[in-house]
Structure formats: C-alpha cells, structure tokens
C-alpha cells in the first residue's frame, strides 16, 4: 500500500475526530470551533444530498432515456418545473411539480392506510378475554383491550358525555363515569408506553455516544489535539462573554 492512501486515511480520521469533539463542545459552551464544525456539516450535507439526488435521477431517468424510453422526458420536465419558483413571473407553474408528487404519494398512502393502519390494528385489538388454560394471557388480553379502548377514548375530542357541561344525573351520569374510567385507564396505559419509550430513548442516545467515543479512541492523537483546541476556544468564548456582558449593578 502506498503512503498516500494511508496518509489520506489518517487525515480522514483526524478530521472526523476534530469535528466530533468540536460539535460535542456545544453541550458545554457555544464557541467558534463548534460554529465552524456546524457549518462544515451543513455545507457537506447539502452537497451530498445534491449528489445523491442526481444519482437517483441518473438511475431512474437519464439512463432509461439513453436506452430509448422517451416517455421519461415527461417526469423530467415535471421535475424541472420545481425550478420555476426562482422566476417570479412563472412561479405559479412550480406548483404543478409538488402537486404531481403529492398526488401520487397521497394516492398510494390513502389506498392502503385503511387496511394497514386502521382495520388490521382494530382487528388485532379484539382479543379473547377468557382463556381458561392461560390466566396470564387472560389478564394480558383484558389489560390490552382496556388500554386500547381507553386510549381511543382519550383521543376522542367530540362526543364527550358530561365532561363539557350538560346532564350529569341518572343514566347520563353512569355513562359519564364509565367514559371517565375508560379514559383514565387509557392515560395510565399511555404512561406505561411513555415509560418504555423513555427507557428506549436512553439506549439509543447512549449507543450514539458509544459510537462516537469508539471512533475517537481509534484516533487518539487527533482527538487530543482537537480537545486542546476546543478548550482554548471555550476559554476564548467565556472571556469574550465576560467582556461584552455589562457588569451587574
């Protein structure tokens, strides 16, 4: 292996370590090196997105066109219409581009959503509430049914009996109490969901941190230099803040 690729790998690891530490420094204090890293990230993201979009256009548009599929010109023209927004006189034409994309996206989503998101989920909520051979599943199914219906009750903001005024005696009162009970079960069910969600969030965020620290350990010299630089930058930021902040009376 020649020296050049190894040097480039070293440089790549060094830049990665520097950007990691400088971006992390924001948690401690906003500073110039953080801003530099942030703008580098945004710039490269924008350029990267451009290249990826161009690649997608190449694969699904230009290459088929080169192979003789002339009809591909139509979506290419529709795509070019997006750029009409930069010409004030013709900016109204630009609305057709998103309309085309939106129409297709909504069309396919609306077609399959009733079955996949509503019917299948509702049918999965109808569970056997009595399994003589399995008391654990019996309790589980009852809990699940109550939580699902309770949650649906909670998210229903119309047809709220007795909670927004109106009759609260007799049959209406029983109905209101039942509704409130179901809603309370739904809230407690959702607390269980949110508790699990919180725990799950911690796993993910810590995993992200572990990933970054693992990469820093792989480039220790660059990490050390970047760390020293960021300490100086944070010190400079604090010093500047003290100079520009008026003293307290």
């Amino acid at each position, binding site marked *: 292996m020649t020296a050049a690729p190894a040097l480039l790998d070293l440089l790549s690891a060094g830049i990665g370590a520097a950007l990691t530490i400088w971006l992390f420094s924001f*948690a*401690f204090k906003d500073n110039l090196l953080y801003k530099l890293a942030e703008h580098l990230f945004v710039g490269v993201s924008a350029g*990267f*997105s451009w290249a*990826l*979009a161009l*690649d*997608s*256009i*190449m*694969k*699904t548009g230009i*290459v*088929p066109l080169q*192979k003789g599929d002339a009809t591909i010109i139509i979506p290419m023209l529709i795509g070019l219409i997006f750029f009409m927004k930069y010409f004030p006189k013709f900016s109204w034409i630009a609305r057709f581009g998103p309309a085309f*994309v939106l129409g*297709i*996206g909504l069309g*396919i*989503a609306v077609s*399959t*959503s009733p*079955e*996949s*998101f509503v019917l*299948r*989920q509702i*049918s*999965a909520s109808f569970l056997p509430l009595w399994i003589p051979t399995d008391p654990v599943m019996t309790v589980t199914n009852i809990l699940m049914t109550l939580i699902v219906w309770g949650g649906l009750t909670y998210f229903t903001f119309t047809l709220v009996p007795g909670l927004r005024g109106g009759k609260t005696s007799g049959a209406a009162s029983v109905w209101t109490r039942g509704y409130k009970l179901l809603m309370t079960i739904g809230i407690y069910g959702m607390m269980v*969901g949110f508790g*699990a*969600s919180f725990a*799950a*969030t*911690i*796993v*993910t*965020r*810590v*995993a*992200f*941190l*572990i*990933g*970054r*620290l*693992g990469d820093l*350990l792989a480039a220790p010299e660059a990490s050390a230099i970047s760390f020293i630089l960021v300490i100086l930058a944070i010190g400079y930021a604090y010093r500047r803040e003290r100079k520009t902040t008026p003293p307290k009376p």
Partner: protein
Amino acid sequence: MSAIDKIYNFLSIKQILYGLLLVIVLWILLNPIGLPMGISTSTRNVYNYVDKLPQGAKVLVDVYYEPAAATEVQPMLGAMLRQILPKNPKIVFVSTISTGPAMFPKLQAYVPDVFSKLKEGDDWVYLGYLAGQETAVAALAKGIKEYVAQDNYGKSTANMAIFNVADKAADFNVVVEVTSGTDPIEWFIRQWETPFKTPVLLFCLSVIAPSVQPFLSSGQAAGMLTGQKAAAEYELLINKPSAAVSAMDAQSGAHVLIMIYIVLGNLLYWPMRLREKGRKSK
C-alpha cells in the same frame, strides 16, 4: 442555603453530569467488564424466523439509517447476513434515505466474510439511493429492474441474474427494514405487506420501538429487533459476538449514572417542595 439546596445546585451543574457521562463511558470502553446478558423472546423469534427461511431465500434489505444509528442497527444487519449466508440467499440492497450509500461501504467492511462469498449481480446488488420515499417503495414493489436502470456503482441492472428471481414484491421471501425512523416501516407495510403479503422484519433503533410495537402485535411485522441490546443478543445467538456485545457494558455504566441522577433528583425534590409548601402555608 441548606445542605439539600447545596447538593441540588451542585448536581444541577450540567457540565459535571456531561463530564461524568463521558468519563464513565470512555473508561468502560477501555476496560470492558464482560457482564452476562439474557436473550429476549423477540430476538429469539427473529433468529428462528431467519433460520426457517428456505434455501435461496430472496431478501430485500432497505439500508435506511444514518451514521449515528449504525452503532445500533449495523450489528443486527451484520448478524442477520451472517446467519442467512449458508442459505445461498439472493439479497437486493436499497436505500430510501440519502445517507444509505454512505453507510453501505461500512456494512461491507463490517461483514467482509459475507460479501466475499456472494457474487455481485448474481447473489447481491446494491441499488443505492432512490428518491421519492413511499412512491419509490411502491415502484420497487411493482418491478425493480424496470424502475432502476443501474445500481449504485453505475452498472446496468438489465442483465443482472438476481432480477430473474427477485424482481417484484411477490418474489421476495422477506423484506428487512433496517431503519432509524418510523416512516419506511409504514411505507413497506403499506406498499409491500398489505397488498402483496410480503413479510417484513424490522431492525430498528430502540427509540422508535414502542411506536412500531403495534405492527408486531398485529402480525403486520414478522419480527422485530430493537436497539443495541437486541443486536448484542442476536450476535450471541449466532455465536459471533462483535461490536454490539462489546458496547453493552458501556450502556450499563451510562444507564446507571442516569438512573442515579433521576433518583437523586426526586429524593432532593420532595424535601425542597415540602419546605416550600410549609413556608407558603405560614
């Protein structure tokens, strides 16, 4: 200022918490402890499902994750590829997110033993990023070769042997959605599972797991792996412990620190609150 106030104010200095978090995780990464772990039912179910796939199984893998998420989901995907390798699979890799092409080479470097045994074009292909989100997913379901003229490396898909057996949604044995978000899960369930009944396996971040559990519960997802713990469990099940297993001790350290802070926060909060209430009632 009472002792409780002083302790609370000290713990409230966020830089101390951040520093402790960094130090603990770094220390454990450099000095792993090697604690044991259990295997959850959901991981075992995914392992058994993949085990039961037929010889020559046709798999579509959506590489839909960013660099940060690779720590959690790449080990799962790597373990699955290692498990499925003896079945001579046909794998079509695609990305419906623009970061996918940046992550695919990392995957190849993570499991070189898999890619060295599979032939590009015959056994596997990577189509790169396809714009359009759900529209792209729906277009893939209707016919990949007609929709995507070349792969991520600029090679024409027209004569690739893999598409003779794995071209439309109905041809595939399973879709493996490796994702850091919930959107592609919804797209594949709406456009592949609902109309064509193609099974979908979910390999996702822990953070999105609760919101996609209903799909597993309703049978719309054939199985689900969530988070670094599931990745570590899967590595243990295939007897190839790797990145995920080695990260679990560091997870423990960070979790314990956060739990201690939550408990301390509440233990300090209640005396302060009762004292405030007492002052107000006077």
